[in-house]
Protein backbone atom coordinates (compact mmCIF):
# COMPACT_ATOMS: atom_id res chain seq x y z
CA UNK A 1 0.00 0.00 0.00
CA UNK A 2 1.34 3.40 -0.94
CA UNK A 3 0.72 4.96 2.46
CA UNK A 4 3.41 2.71 3.91
CA UNK A 5 6.09 4.42 1.87
CA UNK A 6 4.97 7.85 2.95
CA UNK A 7 7.61 9.43 5.18
CA UNK A 8 6.48 9.48 8.75
CA UNK A 9 6.21 12.79 10.56
CA UNK A 10 9.75 14.02 11.07
CA UNK A 11 9.12 15.70 14.41
CA UNK A 12 12.08 15.03 16.66
CA UNK A 13 12.01 16.08 20.25
CA UNK A 14 15.18 16.30 22.26
CA UNK A 15 15.34 13.72 25.03
CA UNK A 16 13.37 14.94 28.02
CA UNK A 17 14.87 15.14 31.48
CA UNK A 18 13.72 12.28 33.70
CA UNK A 19 10.51 13.06 35.57
CA UNK A 20 9.83 12.05 39.16
CA UNK A 21 6.93 9.78 38.12
CA UNK A 22 8.03 8.35 34.81
CA UNK A 23 5.19 5.86 34.56
CA UNK A 24 2.45 8.36 35.27
CA UNK A 25 3.80 10.97 32.87
CA UNK A 26 4.21 8.28 30.27
CA UNK A 27 0.57 7.27 30.77
CA UNK A 28 -0.56 10.87 30.47
CA UNK A 29 1.47 11.49 27.29
CA UNK A 30 -0.01 8.38 25.78
CA UNK A 31 -3.62 9.10 26.61
CA UNK A 32 -3.84 12.87 26.88
CA UNK A 33 -4.89 13.36 23.25
CA UNK A 34 -7.54 10.67 23.45
CA UNK A 35 -8.96 12.04 26.69
CA UNK A 36 -9.07 15.62 25.44
CA UNK A 37 -10.81 14.52 22.22
CA UNK A 38 -13.34 12.07 23.64
CA UNK A 39 -14.36 13.85 26.83
CA UNK A 40 -16.55 16.56 25.25
CA UNK A 41 -18.40 14.02 23.10
CA UNK A 42 -18.91 11.71 26.06
CA UNK A 43 -20.22 14.56 28.20
CA UNK A 44 -22.64 15.55 25.44
CA UNK A 45 -23.85 11.96 25.12
CA UNK A 46 -24.17 11.67 28.90
CA UNK A 47 -26.42 14.72 28.98
CA UNK A 48 -28.33 14.58 25.69
CA UNK A 49 -28.85 10.82 25.60
CA UNK A 50 -28.65 9.29 29.06
CA UNK A 51 -29.57 12.33 31.14
CA UNK A 52 -32.51 13.20 28.90
CA UNK A 53 -33.80 9.62 28.88
CA UNK A 54 -33.61 9.64 32.68
CA UNK A 55 -35.54 12.93 32.74
CA UNK A 56 -38.25 11.54 30.48
CA UNK A 57 -38.54 8.49 32.70
CA UNK A 58 -39.04 10.80 35.63
CA UNK A 59 -41.68 12.83 33.76
CA UNK A 60 -43.47 9.58 32.94
CA UNK A 61 -44.10 8.90 36.63
CA UNK A 62 -44.99 12.52 37.42
CA UNK A 63 -48.24 14.47 37.46
CA UNK A 64 -47.06 16.89 34.77
CA UNK A 65 -49.95 17.87 32.51
CA UNK A 66 -50.30 21.36 31.14
CA UNK A 67 -47.84 24.17 30.66
CA UNK A 68 -46.52 24.31 34.23
CA UNK A 69 -43.84 21.65 34.84
CA UNK A 70 -44.82 19.44 37.77
CA UNK A 71 -42.43 16.65 38.62
CA UNK A 72 -44.16 15.47 41.78
CA UNK A 73 -44.72 11.72 41.49
CA UNK A 74 -48.11 10.14 40.93
CA UNK A 75 -49.42 7.68 43.48
CA UNK A 76 -48.94 4.85 42.62
CA UNK A 77 -45.92 5.72 40.44
CA UNK A 78 -47.03 3.55 37.50
CA UNK A 79 -50.43 5.26 37.32
CA UNK A 80 -49.80 6.97 33.97
CA UNK A 81 -48.61 3.71 32.42
CA UNK A 82 -51.67 1.87 33.76
CA UNK A 83 -54.03 4.42 32.28
CA UNK A 84 -52.15 4.57 28.99
CA UNK A 85 -52.16 0.82 28.42
CA UNK A 86 -55.92 0.81 28.95
CA UNK A 87 -56.52 3.54 26.37
CA UNK A 88 -57.90 2.07 23.14
CA UNK A 89 -55.75 4.47 21.13
CA UNK A 90 -52.49 3.29 22.66
CA UNK A 91 -53.57 -0.32 22.32
CA UNK A 92 -54.22 0.34 18.65
CA UNK A 93 -50.75 1.92 18.41
CA UNK A 94 -49.08 -1.18 19.81
CA UNK A 95 -51.08 -3.38 17.45
CA UNK A 96 -50.23 -1.15 14.49
CA UNK A 97 -46.52 -0.94 15.18
CA UNK A 98 -46.35 -4.71 15.57
CA UNK A 99 -48.27 -5.41 12.35
CA UNK A 100 -46.35 -2.70 10.52
CA UNK A 101 -42.97 -4.03 11.64
CA UNK A 102 -43.73 -7.61 10.63
CA UNK A 103 -45.16 -6.70 7.21
CA UNK A 104 -42.57 -4.05 6.45
CA UNK A 105 -39.58 -6.19 7.44
CA UNK A 106 -40.86 -9.08 5.35
CA UNK A 107 -41.59 -6.98 2.27
CA UNK A 108 -38.43 -4.86 2.43
CA UNK A 109 -36.12 -7.83 2.98
CA UNK A 110 -37.76 -10.05 0.35
CA UNK A 111 -37.79 -7.28 -2.25
CA UNK A 112 -34.26 -6.29 -1.26
CA UNK A 113 -33.12 -9.87 -1.70
CA UNK A 114 -34.76 -10.23 -5.11
CA UNK A 115 -33.29 -6.92 -6.24
CA UNK A 116 -29.82 -7.85 -4.97
CA UNK A 117 -29.81 -11.22 -6.73
CA UNK A 118 -31.11 -9.71 -9.97
CA UNK A 119 -28.63 -6.83 -9.90
CA UNK A 120 -25.73 -9.05 -8.86
CA UNK A 121 -26.36 -11.42 -11.74
CA UNK A 122 -27.20 -8.78 -14.35
CA UNK A 123 -24.93 -8.75 -17.36
CA UNK A 124 -25.25 -5.04 -18.07
CA UNK A 125 -26.27 -1.91 -16.22
CA UNK A 126 -25.54 -3.09 -12.68
CA UNK A 127 -24.56 0.36 -11.44
CA UNK A 128 -27.56 2.01 -13.10
CA UNK A 129 -30.06 -0.46 -11.68
CA UNK A 130 -28.51 -0.32 -8.23
CA UNK A 131 -28.76 3.47 -8.49
CA UNK A 132 -32.46 3.38 -9.33
CA UNK A 133 -33.39 1.01 -6.51
CA UNK A 134 -31.36 2.84 -3.91
CA UNK A 135 -32.54 6.27 -5.00
CA UNK A 136 -35.63 6.44 -2.72
CA UNK A 137 -33.33 5.98 0.28
CA UNK A 138 -31.87 9.42 -0.37
CA UNK A 139 -35.27 11.10 -0.03
CA UNK A 140 -37.00 12.44 3.04
CA UNK A 141 -39.83 10.36 4.53
CA UNK A 142 -41.94 13.50 4.17
CA UNK A 143 -41.44 13.57 0.40
CA UNK A 144 -42.24 9.86 0.26
CA UNK A 145 -45.32 10.33 2.40
CA UNK A 146 -46.66 13.30 0.44
CA UNK A 147 -46.33 11.52 -2.91
CA UNK A 148 -47.55 8.08 -1.84
CA UNK A 149 -50.53 9.60 -0.08
CA UNK A 150 -51.84 10.61 -3.48
CA UNK A 151 -51.09 7.26 -5.06
CA UNK A 152 -53.23 5.62 -2.39
CA UNK A 153 -56.02 8.17 -2.19
CA UNK A 154 -59.08 6.19 -3.36
CA UNK A 155 -60.42 8.86 -5.75
CA UNK A 156 -57.19 8.97 -7.73
CA UNK A 157 -53.76 7.34 -7.99
CA UNK A 158 -53.74 3.55 -8.04
CA UNK A 159 -57.51 3.39 -8.44
CA UNK A 160 -57.35 5.40 -11.67
CA UNK A 161 -55.14 2.67 -13.07
CA UNK A 162 -57.44 -0.04 -11.70
CA UNK A 163 -60.36 1.73 -13.37
CA UNK A 164 -58.39 1.72 -16.58
CA UNK A 165 -58.19 -2.07 -16.45
CA UNK A 166 -61.89 -2.42 -15.61
CA UNK A 167 -62.03 -2.44 -11.78
CA UNK A 168 -64.62 0.25 -11.10
CA UNK A 169 -64.59 0.02 -7.30
CA UNK A 170 -60.99 -0.08 -6.17
CA UNK A 171 -59.89 -0.61 -2.55
CA UNK A 172 -60.36 2.21 -0.05
CA UNK A 173 -56.62 2.14 0.71
CA UNK A 174 -55.60 4.71 3.35
CA UNK A 175 -59.23 5.56 4.18
CA UNK A 176 -60.22 1.98 5.01
CA UNK A 177 -61.08 1.57 8.71
CA UNK A 178 -61.43 -2.24 8.48
CA UNK A 179 -59.23 -4.62 10.44
CA UNK A 180 -58.66 -7.89 8.61
CA UNK A 181 -58.15 -11.27 10.23
CA UNK A 182 -59.49 -10.41 13.68
CA UNK A 183 -57.72 -12.66 16.18
CA UNK A 184 -58.80 -10.85 19.38
CA UNK A 185 -60.80 -13.87 20.59
CA UNK A 186 -57.85 -16.21 20.18
CA UNK A 187 -55.24 -13.85 21.62
CA UNK A 188 -57.17 -12.45 24.56
CA UNK A 189 -56.41 -15.31 26.96
CA UNK A 190 -52.77 -15.46 25.83
CA UNK A 191 -51.74 -11.82 26.16
CA UNK A 192 -50.93 -10.29 29.55
CA UNK A 193 -53.92 -8.20 30.56
CA UNK A 194 -55.82 -9.58 27.59
CA UNK A 195 -59.25 -8.69 28.98
CA UNK A 196 -58.32 -4.99 28.88
CA UNK A 197 -57.89 -5.10 25.13
CA UNK A 198 -60.55 -2.97 23.51
CA UNK A 199 -59.30 -2.86 19.93
CA UNK A 200 -59.63 -5.51 17.27
CA UNK A 201 -56.38 -7.40 16.86
CA UNK A 202 -55.65 -8.00 13.21
CA UNK A 203 -54.24 -6.25 10.18
CA UNK A 204 -55.59 -2.70 9.76
CA UNK A 205 -56.04 -2.43 6.00
CA UNK A 206 -55.11 1.27 5.90
CA UNK A 207 -51.65 0.29 7.11
CA UNK A 208 -50.85 -1.67 3.96
CA UNK A 209 -50.23 1.37 1.72
CA UNK A 210 -47.83 2.68 4.39
CA UNK A 211 -45.99 -0.64 4.38
CA UNK A 212 -45.65 -0.38 0.59
CA UNK A 213 -44.34 3.19 0.75
CA UNK A 214 -41.85 2.34 3.52
CA UNK A 215 -40.63 -0.70 1.60
CA UNK A 216 -40.27 1.41 -1.54
CA UNK A 217 -38.00 3.71 0.41
CA UNK A 218 -35.93 1.11 2.25
CA UNK A 219 -35.79 -2.05 0.10
CA UNK A 220 -32.84 -0.42 -1.66
CA UNK A 221 -31.01 -0.16 1.67
CA UNK A 222 -31.48 -3.90 2.19
CA UNK A 223 -30.38 -4.53 -1.40
CA UNK A 224 -27.17 -2.48 -0.99
CA UNK A 225 -26.19 -4.46 2.10
CA UNK A 226 -26.95 -7.77 0.40
CA UNK A 227 -25.02 -6.73 -2.71
CA UNK A 228 -21.93 -5.94 -0.62
CA UNK A 229 -22.10 -9.41 0.92
CA UNK A 230 -22.74 -11.09 -2.43
CA UNK A 231 -19.73 -9.47 -4.05
CA UNK A 232 -17.56 -10.69 -1.15
CA UNK A 233 -18.70 -14.26 -1.79
CA UNK A 234 -15.83 -16.49 -2.95
CA UNK A 235 -16.26 -17.83 -6.45
CA UNK A 236 -15.10 -21.28 -5.24
CA UNK A 237 -18.44 -21.76 -3.51
CA UNK A 238 -20.21 -21.60 -6.83
CA UNK A 239 -17.70 -23.94 -8.43
CA UNK A 240 -17.85 -26.44 -5.60
CA UNK A 241 -21.63 -26.41 -5.69
CA UNK A 242 -21.73 -27.03 -9.41
CA UNK A 243 -19.17 -29.86 -9.07
CA UNK A 244 -21.53 -31.44 -6.58
CA UNK A 245 -24.26 -31.11 -9.18
CA UNK A 246 -26.38 -28.51 -7.42
CA UNK A 247 -28.89 -26.74 -9.62
CA UNK A 248 -29.65 -23.03 -9.58
CA UNK A 249 -32.37 -23.28 -6.97
CA UNK A 250 -30.46 -25.57 -4.65
CA UNK A 251 -27.36 -23.43 -4.99
CA UNK A 252 -29.25 -20.34 -3.92
CA UNK A 253 -31.11 -22.10 -1.13
CA UNK A 254 -28.17 -24.03 0.34
CA UNK A 255 -25.21 -21.77 -0.40
CA UNK A 256 -26.24 -18.17 -1.11
CA UNK A 257 -28.93 -17.80 1.55
CA UNK A 258 -26.77 -19.16 4.41
CA UNK A 259 -23.96 -16.89 3.25
CA UNK A 260 -26.30 -13.90 3.46
CA UNK A 261 -27.81 -14.87 6.79
CA UNK A 262 -25.63 -12.64 9.01
CA UNK A 263 -26.33 -9.63 6.75
CA UNK A 264 -30.03 -10.41 6.73
CA UNK A 265 -29.99 -10.37 10.53
CA UNK A 266 -28.21 -7.00 10.58
CA UNK A 267 -30.66 -5.55 8.05
CA UNK A 268 -33.61 -6.88 10.07
CA UNK A 269 -32.26 -5.22 13.21
CA UNK A 270 -31.57 -1.89 11.51
CA UNK A 271 -34.90 -1.76 9.67
CA UNK A 272 -36.66 -3.07 12.75
CA UNK A 273 -35.51 -0.16 14.84
CA UNK A 274 -36.48 2.28 12.06
CA UNK A 275 -39.91 0.71 12.07
CA UNK A 276 -40.36 0.85 15.85
CA UNK A 277 -39.64 4.57 15.94
CA UNK A 278 -41.44 5.46 12.70
CA UNK A 279 -43.13 8.82 12.75
CA UNK A 280 -42.37 11.03 9.73
CA UNK A 281 -43.70 8.75 7.01
CA UNK A 282 -46.93 7.87 8.79
CA UNK A 283 -47.48 11.45 9.89
CA UNK A 284 -47.06 12.87 6.37
CA UNK A 285 -48.86 10.07 4.54
CA UNK A 286 -51.92 9.23 6.66
CA UNK A 287 -51.66 10.62 10.19
CA UNK A 288 -53.62 8.70 12.80
CA UNK A 289 -55.95 7.26 10.14
CA UNK A 290 -59.63 6.25 10.38
CA UNK A 291 -60.28 4.94 13.91
CA UNK A 292 -56.55 5.09 14.67
CA UNK A 293 -56.01 2.44 11.97
CA UNK A 294 -52.57 3.85 11.17
CA UNK A 295 -51.67 5.57 14.44
CA UNK A 296 -48.24 4.58 15.82
CA UNK A 297 -46.51 5.27 19.16
CA UNK A 298 -44.33 7.91 17.45
CA UNK A 299 -47.40 9.98 16.56
CA UNK A 300 -49.02 9.31 19.95
CA UNK A 301 -45.99 10.71 21.79
CA UNK A 302 -45.88 13.76 19.56
CA UNK A 303 -49.57 14.58 19.94
CA UNK A 304 -49.82 13.85 23.67
CA UNK A 305 -46.76 15.99 24.37
CA UNK A 306 -46.94 18.92 21.98
CA UNK A 307 -50.65 19.12 21.16
CA UNK A 308 -52.49 17.87 24.26
CA UNK A 309 -49.72 18.93 26.69
CA UNK A 310 -50.14 15.66 28.63
CA UNK A 311 -46.42 15.50 29.27
CA UNK A 312 -46.54 12.48 31.56
CA UNK A 313 -48.51 10.37 29.10
CA UNK A 314 -46.28 11.40 26.19
CA UNK A 315 -43.19 10.61 28.25
CA UNK A 316 -44.58 7.21 29.30
CA UNK A 317 -45.26 6.27 25.67
CA UNK A 318 -41.79 7.45 24.64
CA UNK A 319 -40.23 5.31 27.37
CA UNK A 320 -42.13 2.31 26.00
CA UNK A 321 -40.77 3.12 22.53
CA UNK A 322 -37.26 3.42 23.94
CA UNK A 323 -37.48 0.09 25.74
CA UNK A 324 -38.77 -1.63 22.61
CA UNK A 325 -35.93 -0.36 20.44
CA UNK A 326 -33.35 -0.92 23.18
CA UNK A 327 -34.45 -4.56 23.32
CA UNK A 328 -33.47 -4.82 19.66
CA UNK A 329 -30.40 -2.59 19.60
CA UNK A 330 -28.58 -3.28 22.87
CA UNK A 331 -27.92 -6.98 22.15
CA UNK A 332 -26.85 -5.97 18.66
CA UNK A 333 -24.36 -3.38 19.94
CA UNK A 334 -23.16 -5.83 22.56
CA UNK A 335 -22.44 -8.47 19.97
CA UNK A 336 -21.02 -6.30 17.21
CA UNK A 337 -19.03 -3.77 19.25
CA UNK A 338 -18.19 -5.00 22.70
CA UNK A 339 -17.64 -8.66 21.92
CA UNK A 340 -16.07 -7.90 18.55
CA UNK A 341 -12.79 -9.80 18.11
CA UNK A 342 -9.73 -7.75 19.00
CA UNK A 343 -8.60 -5.85 15.99
Amino acid at each position, binding site marked *: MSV*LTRPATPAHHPAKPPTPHPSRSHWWRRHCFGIVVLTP*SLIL*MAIFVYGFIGYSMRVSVSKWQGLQPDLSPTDPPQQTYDQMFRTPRFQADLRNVTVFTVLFLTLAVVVGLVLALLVHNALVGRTAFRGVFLFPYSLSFIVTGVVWRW*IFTPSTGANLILKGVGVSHGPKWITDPAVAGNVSQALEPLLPGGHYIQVQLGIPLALIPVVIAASWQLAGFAMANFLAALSAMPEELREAASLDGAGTLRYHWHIVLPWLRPVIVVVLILLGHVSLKSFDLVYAMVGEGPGFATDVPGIF*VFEQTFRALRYNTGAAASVVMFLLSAAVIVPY*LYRSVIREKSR
Partner: protein
Amino acid sequence: MSTTPTTLAPPRRRIRRPGAGPLSGAIALAVLAVLFLTPVYIMVTAGLKPPVQADAVHMWELPKHLDFSGIRQAWEKLSPNLRNSLLMVLPATAATAVIGALNGYVLAKLPFRGAKVLFAAMLLGMFIPYQVILVPLVRFLQWLDLYGTLQGLVLVHIVYGIPITTLIFRNYYDQLPHEIIEAARVDGASNSAIFLRLMLPLSLPGFVVCGIFQFTNIWNDFLFGITVVPDPTQQPITVALNNLAGNFSVQWNTVMAGALLAAAPTALVYILLGRFFVHGLTAGSVK
Protein backbone atom coordinates in the same frame (compact mmCIF):
# COMPACT_ATOMS: atom_id res chain seq x y z
CA MET B 1 -18.49 -6.14 6.39
CA SER B 2 -16.23 -6.11 3.40
CA THR B 3 -17.30 -4.15 0.39
CA THR B 4 -14.41 -5.08 -1.87
CA PRO B 5 -15.77 -6.82 -4.94
CA THR B 6 -13.95 -9.99 -5.84
CA THR B 7 -13.02 -10.23 -9.48
CA LEU B 8 -15.62 -12.34 -11.16
CA ALA B 9 -14.15 -15.19 -13.12
CA PRO B 10 -16.58 -16.63 -15.65
CA PRO B 11 -18.44 -19.53 -14.06
CA ARG B 12 -17.07 -22.78 -15.37
CA ARG B 13 -20.08 -24.97 -14.83
CA ARG B 14 -23.69 -24.34 -15.23
CA ILE B 15 -25.18 -22.75 -12.20
CA ARG B 16 -27.55 -20.50 -13.93
CA ARG B 17 -28.64 -17.11 -12.87
CA PRO B 18 -31.93 -17.03 -10.99
CA GLY B 19 -34.93 -17.16 -13.27
CA ALA B 20 -34.92 -18.70 -16.69
CA GLY B 21 -31.88 -16.82 -17.96
CA PRO B 22 -30.20 -13.48 -18.49
CA LEU B 23 -33.04 -12.21 -20.64
CA SER B 24 -35.79 -12.79 -18.09
CA GLY B 25 -33.52 -11.29 -15.43
CA ALA B 26 -33.13 -8.15 -17.51
CA ILE B 27 -36.87 -7.94 -18.11
CA ALA B 28 -37.58 -8.35 -14.39
CA LEU B 29 -35.06 -5.62 -13.59
CA ALA B 30 -36.57 -3.27 -16.15
CA VAL B 31 -40.11 -3.82 -14.82
CA LEU B 32 -38.99 -3.27 -11.23
CA ALA B 33 -37.07 -0.15 -12.22
CA VAL B 34 -40.20 1.31 -13.84
CA LEU B 35 -42.22 0.52 -10.70
CA PHE B 36 -39.60 2.12 -8.48
CA LEU B 37 -39.52 5.27 -10.59
CA THR B 38 -43.32 5.74 -10.63
CA PRO B 39 -43.47 8.17 -7.68
CA VAL B 40 -40.59 10.12 -9.20
CA TYR B 41 -42.53 10.30 -12.47
CA ILE B 42 -45.55 11.75 -10.63
CA MET B 43 -43.47 14.41 -8.87
CA VAL B 44 -41.57 15.50 -11.95
CA THR B 45 -44.49 15.60 -14.39
CA ALA B 46 -46.78 17.33 -11.86
CA GLY B 47 -44.34 20.16 -11.52
CA LEU B 48 -44.28 20.69 -15.29
CA LYS B 49 -48.01 20.63 -16.04
CA PRO B 50 -50.21 23.58 -17.05
CA PRO B 51 -52.92 24.58 -14.52
CA VAL B 52 -55.73 22.78 -16.43
CA GLN B 53 -54.04 19.45 -15.75
CA ALA B 54 -52.92 20.42 -12.29
CA ASP B 55 -55.05 18.11 -10.16
CA ALA B 56 -54.82 14.59 -8.87
CA VAL B 57 -57.33 13.29 -11.43
CA HIS B 58 -54.77 13.91 -14.17
CA MET B 59 -52.02 12.39 -12.06
CA TRP B 60 -50.75 9.91 -14.62
CA GLU B 61 -50.97 12.13 -17.70
CA LEU B 62 -47.89 13.56 -19.34
CA PRO B 63 -47.91 17.39 -19.49
CA LYS B 64 -49.80 18.60 -22.57
CA HIS B 65 -47.19 21.32 -22.83
CA LEU B 66 -44.40 22.38 -20.54
CA ASP B 67 -45.47 24.87 -17.91
CA PHE B 68 -43.40 25.84 -14.92
CA SER B 69 -46.13 27.55 -12.90
CA GLY B 70 -46.28 24.68 -10.37
CA ILE B 71 -42.59 24.87 -9.70
CA ARG B 72 -42.70 28.66 -9.59
CA GLN B 73 -45.50 28.68 -6.99
CA ALA B 74 -43.75 26.06 -4.88
CA TRP B 75 -40.54 28.05 -5.07
CA GLU B 76 -42.31 31.21 -3.89
CA LYS B 77 -43.71 29.40 -0.87
CA LEU B 78 -40.73 27.25 0.00
CA SER B 79 -37.57 29.13 -0.93
CA PRO B 80 -37.15 30.69 2.56
CA ASN B 81 -37.34 27.20 4.06
CA LEU B 82 -34.88 25.84 1.52
CA ARG B 83 -32.53 28.54 2.72
CA ASN B 84 -33.16 27.57 6.36
CA SER B 85 -32.38 23.97 5.54
CA LEU B 86 -29.10 24.92 3.87
CA LEU B 87 -28.12 27.16 6.80
CA MET B 88 -28.86 24.26 9.12
CA VAL B 89 -27.28 21.44 7.12
CA LEU B 90 -23.96 22.97 6.12
CA PRO B 91 -22.56 23.96 9.53
CA ALA B 92 -23.98 20.87 11.24
CA THR B 93 -22.49 18.56 8.62
CA ALA B 94 -19.08 20.22 8.79
CA ALA B 95 -18.95 20.21 12.58
CA THR B 96 -20.08 16.59 12.97
CA ALA B 97 -17.57 15.45 10.36
CA VAL B 98 -14.67 17.08 12.23
CA ILE B 99 -15.80 15.73 15.62
CA GLY B 100 -16.36 12.30 14.08
CA ALA B 101 -12.89 12.27 12.53
CA LEU B 102 -11.23 13.08 15.87
CA ASN B 103 -13.28 10.54 17.81
CA GLY B 104 -12.88 7.91 15.13
CA TYR B 105 -9.11 8.33 15.12
CA VAL B 106 -8.87 7.94 18.88
CA LEU B 107 -11.15 4.89 18.94
CA ALA B 108 -9.50 3.17 15.98
CA LYS B 109 -5.84 3.96 16.58
CA LEU B 110 -5.25 4.79 20.23
CA PRO B 111 -6.58 1.77 22.07
CA PHE B 112 -7.32 2.06 25.76
CA ARG B 113 -9.16 -0.04 28.30
CA GLY B 114 -12.90 0.34 28.17
CA ALA B 115 -12.85 1.89 24.70
CA LYS B 116 -15.37 -0.57 23.31
CA VAL B 117 -17.84 -0.04 26.11
CA LEU B 118 -17.63 3.74 25.73
CA PHE B 119 -18.00 3.40 21.97
CA ALA B 120 -21.07 1.19 22.34
CA ALA B 121 -22.55 3.59 24.89
CA MET B 122 -22.01 6.39 22.39
CA LEU B 123 -23.56 4.43 19.51
CA LEU B 124 -26.75 3.84 21.44
CA GLY B 125 -27.34 7.57 20.90
CA MET B 126 -28.02 7.02 17.20
CA PHE B 127 -30.49 4.21 17.74
CA ILE B 128 -32.79 5.73 20.35
CA PRO B 129 -36.21 6.91 19.23
CA TYR B 130 -35.73 10.66 19.53
CA GLN B 131 -39.24 10.97 20.95
CA VAL B 132 -37.77 9.91 24.29
CA ILE B 133 -35.54 12.99 24.57
CA LEU B 134 -37.77 15.70 23.10
CA VAL B 135 -39.20 17.25 26.25
CA PRO B 136 -35.89 17.61 28.12
CA LEU B 137 -34.31 18.76 24.86
CA VAL B 138 -36.83 21.56 24.41
CA ARG B 139 -36.42 22.64 28.03
CA PHE B 140 -32.63 22.55 27.73
CA LEU B 141 -32.74 24.70 24.59
CA GLN B 142 -35.10 27.14 26.29
CA TRP B 143 -32.60 27.38 29.13
CA LEU B 144 -29.82 28.09 26.61
CA ASP B 145 -32.11 30.62 24.90
CA LEU B 146 -31.75 28.66 21.66
CA TYR B 147 -35.28 27.27 21.46
CA GLY B 148 -37.01 28.14 18.19
CA THR B 149 -33.81 29.21 16.45
CA LEU B 150 -31.83 27.72 13.60
CA GLN B 151 -28.73 27.75 15.80
CA GLY B 152 -30.56 25.56 18.28
CA LEU B 153 -31.43 23.15 15.49
CA VAL B 154 -27.80 23.10 14.34
CA LEU B 155 -26.68 22.28 17.88
CA VAL B 156 -29.19 19.42 18.08
CA HIS B 157 -28.03 17.95 14.79
CA ILE B 158 -24.40 18.21 15.83
CA VAL B 159 -24.96 16.43 19.13
CA TYR B 160 -27.08 13.61 17.74
CA GLY B 161 -24.80 13.31 14.70
CA ILE B 162 -21.74 12.47 16.82
CA PRO B 163 -22.41 8.70 17.10
CA ILE B 164 -22.86 8.05 13.37
CA THR B 165 -19.92 10.19 12.26
CA THR B 166 -17.69 8.62 14.94
CA LEU B 167 -18.74 5.23 13.62
CA ILE B 168 -18.04 6.12 9.99
CA PHE B 169 -14.57 7.45 10.80
CA ARG B 170 -13.69 4.67 13.21
CA ASN B 171 -14.43 2.15 10.47
CA TYR B 172 -12.51 4.27 7.98
CA TYR B 173 -9.37 4.67 10.09
CA ASP B 174 -9.56 1.06 11.13
CA GLN B 175 -8.67 -0.08 7.64
CA LEU B 176 -5.60 2.17 7.43
CA PRO B 177 -2.53 0.13 8.47
CA HIS B 178 -1.43 0.46 12.07
CA GLU B 179 2.20 0.35 10.98
CA ILE B 180 2.23 3.92 9.70
CA ILE B 181 1.26 5.14 13.16
CA GLU B 182 3.83 2.97 14.87
CA ALA B 183 6.49 4.27 12.50
CA ALA B 184 5.57 7.88 13.20
CA ARG B 185 5.53 7.22 16.93
CA VAL B 186 9.00 5.67 16.82
CA ASP B 187 10.07 8.90 15.16
CA GLY B 188 8.75 10.70 18.22
CA ALA B 189 5.59 12.24 16.75
CA SER B 190 2.87 13.07 19.25
CA ASN B 191 -0.68 11.78 18.83
CA SER B 192 -1.94 15.17 17.75
CA ALA B 193 0.87 15.52 15.20
CA ILE B 194 0.07 12.06 13.83
CA PHE B 195 -3.56 13.05 13.45
CA LEU B 196 -2.91 16.42 11.82
CA ARG B 197 -0.01 15.54 9.54
CA LEU B 198 -0.54 11.88 8.81
CA MET B 199 -4.18 10.89 9.23
CA LEU B 200 -5.91 14.06 8.08
CA PRO B 201 -4.26 14.09 4.63
CA LEU B 202 -5.43 10.48 4.20
CA SER B 203 -8.96 11.27 5.32
CA LEU B 204 -10.51 12.86 2.26
CA PRO B 205 -12.57 9.78 1.25
CA GLY B 206 -13.77 9.47 4.83
CA PHE B 207 -14.88 13.09 4.84
CA VAL B 208 -16.70 12.70 1.54
CA VAL B 209 -18.62 9.64 2.74
CA CYS B 210 -19.39 11.21 6.09
CA GLY B 211 -20.33 14.55 4.55
CA ILE B 212 -22.78 13.03 2.09
CA PHE B 213 -24.32 10.83 4.70
CA GLN B 214 -24.80 13.63 7.20
CA PHE B 215 -26.02 16.07 4.56
CA THR B 216 -28.76 13.61 3.62
CA ASN B 217 -29.62 12.68 7.21
CA ILE B 218 -29.92 16.23 8.46
CA TRP B 219 -31.66 17.56 5.36
CA ASN B 220 -34.28 14.83 5.66
CA ASP B 221 -34.94 15.30 9.37
CA PHE B 222 -38.48 16.19 10.32
CA LEU B 223 -39.00 15.45 14.02
CA PHE B 224 -36.41 17.91 15.36
CA GLY B 225 -37.50 20.55 12.86
CA ILE B 226 -41.13 20.42 13.91
CA THR B 227 -40.49 20.29 17.67
CA VAL B 228 -37.53 22.62 18.13
CA VAL B 229 -38.71 25.38 15.75
CA PRO B 230 -42.39 26.35 16.01
CA ASP B 231 -42.02 29.52 13.89
CA PRO B 232 -42.94 28.65 10.24
CA THR B 233 -40.50 31.20 8.81
CA GLN B 234 -37.60 29.48 10.57
CA GLN B 235 -38.57 25.89 9.81
CA PRO B 236 -36.59 23.61 7.52
CA ILE B 237 -37.98 22.48 4.18
CA THR B 238 -39.33 19.11 5.33
CA VAL B 239 -41.61 20.75 7.89
CA ALA B 240 -42.67 23.43 5.41
CA LEU B 241 -43.49 20.78 2.81
CA ASN B 242 -45.64 18.92 5.30
CA ASN B 243 -47.50 22.15 6.12
CA LEU B 244 -47.96 22.86 2.41
CA ALA B 245 -49.34 19.37 1.81
CA GLY B 246 -51.83 19.75 4.65
CA ASN B 247 -53.12 23.08 3.33
CA PHE B 248 -56.19 22.39 1.22
CA SER B 249 -56.16 25.76 -0.51
CA VAL B 250 -52.88 24.86 -2.21
CA GLN B 251 -53.11 23.26 -5.64
CA TRP B 252 -52.12 19.65 -5.99
CA ASN B 253 -49.34 20.20 -8.47
CA THR B 254 -47.81 22.91 -6.27
CA VAL B 255 -47.50 20.34 -3.50
CA MET B 256 -45.89 17.84 -5.85
CA ALA B 257 -43.51 20.50 -7.14
CA GLY B 258 -42.75 21.31 -3.51
CA ALA B 259 -41.89 17.68 -2.89
CA LEU B 260 -39.60 17.87 -5.90
CA LEU B 261 -37.86 20.96 -4.48
CA ALA B 262 -37.43 19.32 -1.08
CA ALA B 263 -36.04 16.20 -2.69
CA ALA B 264 -33.75 17.94 -5.19
CA PRO B 265 -30.65 18.66 -3.06
CA THR B 266 -30.25 15.17 -1.62
CA ALA B 267 -31.25 13.60 -4.93
CA LEU B 268 -28.58 15.66 -6.68
CA VAL B 269 -25.94 14.69 -4.14
CA TYR B 270 -27.01 11.10 -4.56
CA ILE B 271 -26.89 11.14 -8.36
CA LEU B 272 -23.51 12.89 -8.48
CA LEU B 273 -21.82 11.03 -5.63
CA GLY B 274 -23.83 7.81 -5.38
CA ARG B 275 -20.72 5.66 -5.11
CA PHE B 276 -19.73 7.24 -1.79
CA PHE B 277 -23.31 7.18 -0.62
CA VAL B 278 -23.28 3.37 -0.69
CA HIS B 279 -20.16 3.36 1.49
CA GLY B 280 -21.75 5.60 4.11
CA LEU B 281 -24.85 3.48 4.16
CA THR B 282 -23.11 0.18 4.72
CA ALA B 283 -21.04 1.91 7.40
CA GLY B 284 -24.30 2.18 9.33
CA SER B 285 -24.25 -1.61 9.66
CA VAL B 286 -21.57 -1.06 12.34
CA LYS B 287 -19.02 -3.35 10.83
